[in-house]
């Protein structure tokens, strides 16, 4: 359960970071009519976007490597 929760959390967080950084943190989209279009609204917003992409795929690693909740008891799987 813990595993699924962590994985889902990472995927959701990753996509959320991507969306937020793409649309709200990075430089605005549209016809560049002023200097505001040349600067990200938050510095290093593109790095946040990349972090988001990585989190989504990191979820797979977490899913496979996270130990079963409750230590080493493998429930019914041996």
């Amino acid at each position, binding site marked *: 359960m813990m595993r699924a929760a962590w994985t889902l959390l990472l995927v959701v967080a990753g996509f959320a970071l991507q969306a937020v950084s793409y649309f709200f943190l990075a430089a605005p989209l549209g016809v560049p009519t002023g200097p505001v279009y040349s*600067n990200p609204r938050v510095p290093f917003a593109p790095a946040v976007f990349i972090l988001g*992409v990585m989190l989504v795929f990191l979820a797979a*690693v977490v899913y*496979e490597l996270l130990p079963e909740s409750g230590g080493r008891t493998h429930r019914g799987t041996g």
Partner: protein
Amino acid sequence: MSVQVQRLPYGVGRFQVGFWLFILVLLSVVGWGIYAYSRQLVEGLVVTGLRDIGTMGGAAWGLYIAFDVYFVGVSFAGITMAALIRLLRLEELRPVSRMAELLTIVALVLAAFSVLPDLGQPVRGIVNLLRYARPQSPFFGTFTLVISGYLFASLVYFYLDGRRDAALLARIPSPLQGFYRLWAAGYRDTPAERERHHRAAFWLAIAIVPLLVTAHSTLGFVFGIQSGRPGWFSTLQAPAFVVMAGVSGIGLLLVIAAVFRHVLGERERLHEAIFRWLGGLLALLVLVYLYFTVAELLTTTYTGHETEVRLTLALLTGPYAWLFWVSMGALVLGLVALLLPYVPSVVPVRVPSFRPAFTRAAGLAAAGAGLLLMIHRHGPRLAPAAGAGPEPEWVGWVLAGLAVVFVLSWFPLFARSVVAAGVAGGLLVNVAAVGKRLLIVVPSQTHGTLLPYGPGSYTPTWVEYSVVAGLFALGTLLYTLFVKVFPIMEVAEEQ
């Protein structure tokens, strides 16, 4: 655990003299590339053949960008194979899965490295892209999705897929045992773990497929949405990039699979069905690409928009004609070679009627002479100055014809062996892929100016050739070294 291994499989950890010699050659080429790049760092990009578009009559993007596009294209193979195997349950392709994934990773590393020399300020490039990158620029997708996301996703997939084998190898005493144990990270190949890996890999494959399309498309959009460059501005650009990526990636995978089939003597595991399957897929992709090319040429010439026609003529009959027709010829010949094994054996293939040995000798001589002629005539120039060289046109065409005869002379072999056909097809389509990448990048700059600057030219210099050669050597080096520390194929159940 059901699988037992006594010694490291597939030549892992065994180093012969030949191997070290090979590494030495690769290292020296890499070193030469680094030297060339250091010249460029010191002198500036003036040591390349690149120049400004317009009054300087040059191309601002050249070999580096073309090979960046090519390397990103090659990376198509790995993820596609992984996705195909997982989603379509093509179990018989399993043995090439890791080769393909490694090809993806190496190709993406090379892609990142081939952009760097194109930048005038490489250090600034790395910092400023992370700091300021704008989503509106088509480069945003290229470096966030392709270089970072795609590479990371491939690494994750590769890592997870390799855990089982790492766990197996960790039981064999070897100097690399610690590395394998680290990689396995506690994997014990229990049914539960296996089930979990299958599920994770399945979802990863599903997540990667849309990334595949977007990543290769963003690279197409770098060119496709620029209305100021005839020949670039086209809706077909992004889809054509995806298809061409498949062509070059699968083509190279065929070659690599054949190399390992030969070097490792794994004729059983790398069986012909794999080559037949990959060859069929490649032939299909080539057909789609040829269709795109025809559609593109018709669109640009039919309406007769002056600048588009000028550019298309430069491709078909002008200074780029030799590259265009060599690429198209390689694509078509590759397609035919790939399809030959499918010709039913009741239909005898009687292409050449001369003795093969004679034809091959003639063909080789022709290819060599053609190369010498090209170099003598233009220097290794992409767009020769008007009226360069005293040789009449027909000499080139005769040589090209002989080269075709050379390829044709091998056709009986291709009809017999699907592996040989795959290798020939893979090599030919990769020649075409490089050519087409150059034809996308360069002519639109030299012959696609909308103001009447007149035609320009672009001649790569030794620095550019050396850096690209160094990149290829680096890729081969990384690939070869990895093969020596980790099995390139999944360790078989029966071992």
